[in-house]
């Protein structure tokens, strides 16, 4: 009942307004800020909109919303390549996907879901449990492997993650698998030791040949810290795509607007739940619609 009345009120206030007053602009700003878009990108967007409104002679809040949607879609880059390289190379090596991010964002779950998609597509997948640190992390990935039908390579608890990753790719090559998905331990971007370790995991894997994808897993509930995370991970392991998880909650994931604006790395996938099938391609228009709340 509550949501109905607030929707009703929202519509009423929209219908009763025929021109753009300061309240309308403030609403736009609030929408962006409460979606975690961030102060600077929000102010920049609103400035751009103000200019466009003057030029175009936009007069109604509805038209303004359309313009806003348009600007946001542009920012997110509607034409970016969001495909994943998961097929064997010309030389017959499996594609290698490295999954990275801070603690608890959904890396292991995303690895499992991604394996599910690939296996369902008839590919052979090997999982590398390069999180040798967190309690039962390898068991968790193994359960996912059993669930979706992918083989797992794991090492001793507390062992060297780079060598587990190396072995996983070696196993993938031996089995002539299509894709090797390497799950890594969660690490805060501020921990230089752990970030160095991650850099090493990538370098060691590259002894077999180039890595196809490095996916940064970002939690949609993350606030402004997400941008800093993306910056540092991009520096250390050169990320090729972002997975935005937990979008099934109430968070809008607006931080990826700033991330894409600054780093130009596309969001490729979204996580929509804890189940094996809750992974979907990122769709800029749908994302923006949810962000501006219509």
């Amino acid at each position, binding site marked *: 009942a509550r949501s109905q009345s607030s929707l009703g009120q929202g519509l009423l206030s929209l219908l009763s307004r025929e021109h753009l007053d300061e309240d309308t602009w403030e609403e736009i700003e*609030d929408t962006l*800020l*409460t*979606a*975690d878009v*961030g*102060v*600077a990108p929000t102010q920049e967007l609103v400035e751009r909109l103000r200019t466009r409104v003057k030029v175009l002679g936009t007069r109604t809040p509805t038209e303004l919303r359309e313009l806003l949607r348009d600007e946001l879609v542009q920012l997110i880059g509607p034409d970016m390549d969001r495909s994943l390289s998961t097929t064997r190379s010309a030389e017959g090596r499996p594609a290698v996907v490295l999954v990275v991010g*801070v*603690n*608890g*964002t*959904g890396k*292991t779950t995303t690895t*499992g879901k991604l394996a599910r998609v690939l296996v369902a597509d008839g590919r052979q997948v090997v999982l590398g449990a390069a999180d040798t*640190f*967190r*309690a*039962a992390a390898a*068991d*968790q990935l*193994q*359960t*996912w492997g059993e*669930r979706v039908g992918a083989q797992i390579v794991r090492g001793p608890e507390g062992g060297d993650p780079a060598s587990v990753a190396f072995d996983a790719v070696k196993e993938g090559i031996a089995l002539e698998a299509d894709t090797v998905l390497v799950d890594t331990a969660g690490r*805060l*971007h*501020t*921990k230089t030791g752990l970030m160095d370790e991650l850099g090493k995991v990538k370098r060691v894997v590259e002894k077999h040949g180039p890595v196809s994808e490095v996916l940064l897993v970002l*939690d949609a*509930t*993350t*606030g*402004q*810290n*997400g941008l*800093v995370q993306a910056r540092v991970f991009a520096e250390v392991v050169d990320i090729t795509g972002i997975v935005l998880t*937990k979008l*099934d*909650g*109430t*968070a*809008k994931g*607006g*931080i990826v607007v700033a991330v894409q604006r600054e780093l130009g790395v596309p969001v490729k996938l979204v996580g929509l739940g*804890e189940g094996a099938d809750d992974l979907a391609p990122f769709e800029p228009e749908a994302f923006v619609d949810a962000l501006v709340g219509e």
Partner: protein
Amino acid sequence: MFDTLSDRLAATFKNLRSRGRLSEADIDATAREIRIALLEADVALPVVRAFIKQVKTRALGAEVSQALNPAQQVIKIVNEELVGILGGETRRLRYAKQPPTVIMLAGLQGAGKTTLAGKLGRWLRNQGHAPLLVACDLQRPNAVNQLSVVAERAGVAVYAPQPGNGVGDPVQVAKDSIEYARTKQFDVVVVDTAGRLGIDAELMQQAADIRDAVSPDEILFVVDAMIGQDAVTTAQAFLDGVGFDGVVLTKLDGDARGGAALSVAQVTGRQVMFASNGEKLDDFDAFHPDRMASRILGMGDVLSLIEKA
């Protein structure tokens, strides 16, 4: 762009510095900068608004200080208000008169509940208690294993009668754990639960059922310090769905400002009791409102200067 609030304010106040009184214009200029700083620290927008309003009212009525310039004076007020909302003195855990004391953990997926269970276990053990960790996340792959390993590392006991991974009834486990603790003489029970979303009515009901099965002395809402504007919605949903008595802020070892601390405290009236600041079992501390205030504002140095004045 300025990095810290102190830089911003220094620029704003360059030409106001010599004046001794707080004018409305001074306060407005400062308020704008503080608004931005709070938003960048991920304090939720409605909380920022209410907060700024409160600060303005107080600043306008404030007595003119001899020792501080106008900017410093406003910041002093801001800091006091922040610490006030964050809870002045840290509250201690409430223990039951009749053991076992029951502590239930709840929060979003991946917030740090299971890790916290281990940390609490270790901390309680070091204080002479005999804690029991209870595995009520029977949903996430290998959550039960994880808790068992964590308990072993902490050197405390675990009650994990069900394998998990979708098998077993968490409410039943919760219920049985109390009887188990009584017979085996554990005096504190820490109930680890599955992560859940605020909008997941079914899982929220499950949390409420677990609560009713164990009648906790403390329900702790565990929240990631990196969370953004969604903190208020989520905190409110957990407050309505299960209720909670205290808050634990996790992953404070990163560089997130942690504005959620303010959002959650303001919206729910519940204090942050503990800070979790690392992956290891000893990375755990009581929460310090004053440190958090300067972290949110990003101006520790300025604050200590002002406090001396």
